[in-house]
């Protein structure tokens, strides 16, 4: 691109060859900046678009606007002190981040977590997965111009955040799931309120499908847009709903079960071809609609897991005994959990001291976002919003 800059105006590129071929008709490509503050890019993401009118020729994501040196901080604080930092990675699904880091350090230490603590962790993780998918559903509708589903999603989210507030006092960054289990027990009456919420919430998903998922305008905006084949998805390291939307039935909770997920009965939704199981006929496996719809189905499956948790919830200790001064053995552990956006991995390297030598976080959105430049070619500007929305990035995970 650089050799074509003329007259010190880097924002206008004149393609001389196209000029001649077009018989003297001068067209110019524009370099437009989408973000980093932008209502549509789910956080501080900067997309440099090279566009020809409405057609996007090239899309380059620029990241790093939310980098907060989380991994470096991990080398200076003890694991218990690092839990609040993990909250802020995927801040929409903070419980899952806590869960993953706690599991990694417990594996390093060989610590056993009591049964009630493990069930509490799964309840919180799945509830947070629902909350995160609600934001994704609402924000995607907002990107597509449907203002109302956003408000409905946040209305349901308010009930979930009320539940979280009753449990640990916080609404977004909880630091509730810590080393050895949960920091506090569930409050009185929590299982009943959770059951009440599930009774209220499960019919709502059908409503949202009626309002948004099967709406012809929405389908036309998202079906067939940004198709990622299964081979491409695996090659680019996509995980989570992006991978499952392309038809690959891979979910860590079923395929490499961690914690107690092997005790629950649930399905893994994958991308549907057109006309199957209620999918509109224009839909293709691996397109934006499928990535979005997988999240709707996952909310239903999470509700299923939650009901089974409530049935099986035992009484007892909610946290193992954690010594005051914890020396991490000189080993390394890499453990992945199924976050709301994909496989969230933690590498913890101990060397005998209370603080780790290295903490490395594999953010799923980082890998998911890498495919943006590959699939945002020769699409319209409006489609870029559809594609980025369907990938559902949270910049906290991307930048750490």
């Amino acid at each position, binding site marked *: 691109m650089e050799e074509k800059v003329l007259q010190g105006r880097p*924002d206008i590129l004149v393609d001389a060859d196209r000029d001649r071929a077009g018989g003297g008709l001068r067209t110019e490509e*524009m370099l*437009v900046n989408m973000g980093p503050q*932008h*209502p*549509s890019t789910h956080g501080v993401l900067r997309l440099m678009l090279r566009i020809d009118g*409405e057609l996007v020729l090239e899309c380059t994501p620029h990241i790093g606007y939310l980098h907060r040196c989380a991994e470096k901080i991990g080398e200076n604080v003890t694991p218990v002190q690092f839990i609040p930092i993990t909250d802020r990675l995927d801040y929409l699904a903070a419980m899952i981040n806590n869960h993953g880091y706690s599991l990694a350090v417990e594996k390093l230490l060989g610590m056993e977590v009591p049964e009630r603590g493990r069930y509490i962790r799964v309840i919180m993780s799945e509830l947070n997965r629902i909350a995160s998918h609600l934001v994704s559903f609402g924000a995607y*509708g*907002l*990107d*597509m*111009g*449907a*203002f*109302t589903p956003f*408000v*409905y999603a946040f*209305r349901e989210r308010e*009930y979930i955040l*009320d539940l979280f*507030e*009753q449990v640990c006092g916080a609404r977004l960054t909880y630091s509730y799931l810590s080393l050895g289990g949960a920091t506090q027990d569930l409050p009185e009456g929590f299982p009943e309120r959770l059951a*009440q*919420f599930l*009774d*209220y919430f499960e019919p709502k998903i059908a409503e949202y499908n009626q*309002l*948004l998922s099967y*709406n012809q*305008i*929405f389908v*036309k*905006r998202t079906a067939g847009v940004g198709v990622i084949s299964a081979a491409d998805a695996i090659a680019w390291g996509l995980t989570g709903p992006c991978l499952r939307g392309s038809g690959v039935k891979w979910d860590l909770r079923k395929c490499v079960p961690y914690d107690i997920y092997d005790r629950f009965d649930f399905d893994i939704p994958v991308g549907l071809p057109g006309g199957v199981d209620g999918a509109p006929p224009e839909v293709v496996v691996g397109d934006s609609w499928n990535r979005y719809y997988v999240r709707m189905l996952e909310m239903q499956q999470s509700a299923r897991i939650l009901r089974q948790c409530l049935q099986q919830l035992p009484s007892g200790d909610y946290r193992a005994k954690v010594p005051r001064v914890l020396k991490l053995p000189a080993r390394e552990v890499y453990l992945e959990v199924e976050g709301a956006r994909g496989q969230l991995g933690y590498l913890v390297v101990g060397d005998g001291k209370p603080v780790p030598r290295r903490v490395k976080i594999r953010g799923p959105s980082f890998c998911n976002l890498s495919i943006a430049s590959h699939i945002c070619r020769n699409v*319209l*500007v*409006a*489609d870029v*919003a559809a594609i980025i929305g369907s990938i559902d990035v949270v910049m906290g995970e991307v930048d750490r």
Partner: protein
Amino acid sequence: MRKFTADDALRPRFSAADQARAVRGFVTAGLVLLAAAVGLGLVAGATQGVGYAAAVGGLVLAGLTGACCLLAALVIRFAALVGRVLLTLALPIFLAGVVGLVILAWIPALLYERVDGIKAAQAGGVVRVAQFEAALAGGAAAGRGPAYLAALVLWPLQFQLARDVLAVVGVVGFVSLVAMFGIWWERKVAGRIQSRLGPMRVGGWHGWAQSLADGLKLLQKEDIFIAGADRALFRLAPYVAFIPAVCLFIALPFSAAWVARDLEVGLIFIFAMLGVGVLGVLLAGWASNNKWSMLGAMREACQMISYEIPLGFSLLVPIMTVGTLRLTAIGEAQSGGFHTWLAFANPFTFTAAVVFFVATLASCKRAPFDLPEAESELVAGYLTEYSGFRWALFFFAEYAEMFAVAALAAVLFFGAWHSPLPAHWGAAWADGPLWQRAAHGLLYSGPLWFVLKGFFFFFVQLWLRWTLPRIRLDQVMYACVQVLLPLTMLALLGNTFWLWLVRPGSWPAVAVNLALTALGGLAVLGMVAIVLYGYLNRRRLVGPMAVDPLPGG
């Protein structure tokens, strides 16, 4: 958190010392002005002619201003009490305001009648003030007294220019009111659709003063100029967008006699005004020196201009059916009840009505065609760099245009200013006692039904905006060229053949008319039923969680 109650709204926000100072100032000003009024009264007693008129004018002005100052002093002194009175009497005050506005709009008609009478009595040419005075006083022209003042007021009204100025003032006033009400109502409807309340605080009752407060706020904002923006065009663009939107109302008939200008080519004029609005958008996008604004402006131009074709074609259908471009004539053709409305005349006019509505949605850049303002993609499209009152003008223009096209749909296809009841049903009441005449007037009032129908279609526009997602630009063009255009051409062709082959009053015409009328009636009843059902079952529909208070509430 403590609930925000009426007492909180009424508690004075200024210190007692400030209040006392304000009261003193207003009392002083009021007394001074009243003294000046008395002085001017003495002067008036001694002069004649123009001097007399000036003195009386000054007297009235000073007197009114003085009285207002004293009233202001009273209100500040007893602010809490006054506030409470206003809150309890909010609805009566509002209704009184509406009635007052209607009377205000009715007075010019009476004055014009009088002036026309006097003109007719004279030989011709320009009537002088003295002649007016003679006609009103019944004889002597004294150069002073109430007859002289009345003559001074009536004299300019014989010129068409003065009547036009009054009409324009009325139109601008109405447009401002409509825009302000429309903005408030949009926010309430949006809130209700999104299961929340919308504005609730500003002004007390359901935030009715929200638009007013927003307008005042926007007036005070800093005048921001973008570096590199084309200053002249940047300043010009809001007006080029706003003025055509207001001009639309000049040709719209509120009733058979209530038209600012009953143009022979009314429909063409309206179509032209809708088209000029594109210029404002293009200017705004270009002058902002911002690629995103330019993109938004180009999209908007593309969309609006393409949709003018189906719009024009669908406009041809009522023109052909009634045979004239005059809006009042098209309105008159639909008197006689629900079934005479043009939308229900034959399936082709029905199609044309639907196509017209969709095309005007695109023309007003309303969702689902609101790509030019697509928040998620272009921040605000061509509006991005506008703030303060310039932005308010664009906003006003949009809401004025929305109401205008909604009212236009009503005029062209849905009975204009006629009520759904056939005129002869209530005819007996037009001559009965006062209450019967009042009821008849209300039921069959032209302007009332015009405004109601306009706001009904306005409501449908809001409903669609807050329910449907946005259509992408190429899909917008596809819908225009490959769906709406063939449909509207078919409607035009079909209507032509229908008018040629089918006799009005023959059984196919009547059957189709009745079928479409039934369809329309069912649609309206269905909407009313849905609203009632939703209202009666509101607790159940929202769900069990909604009745639980928030913790600590």
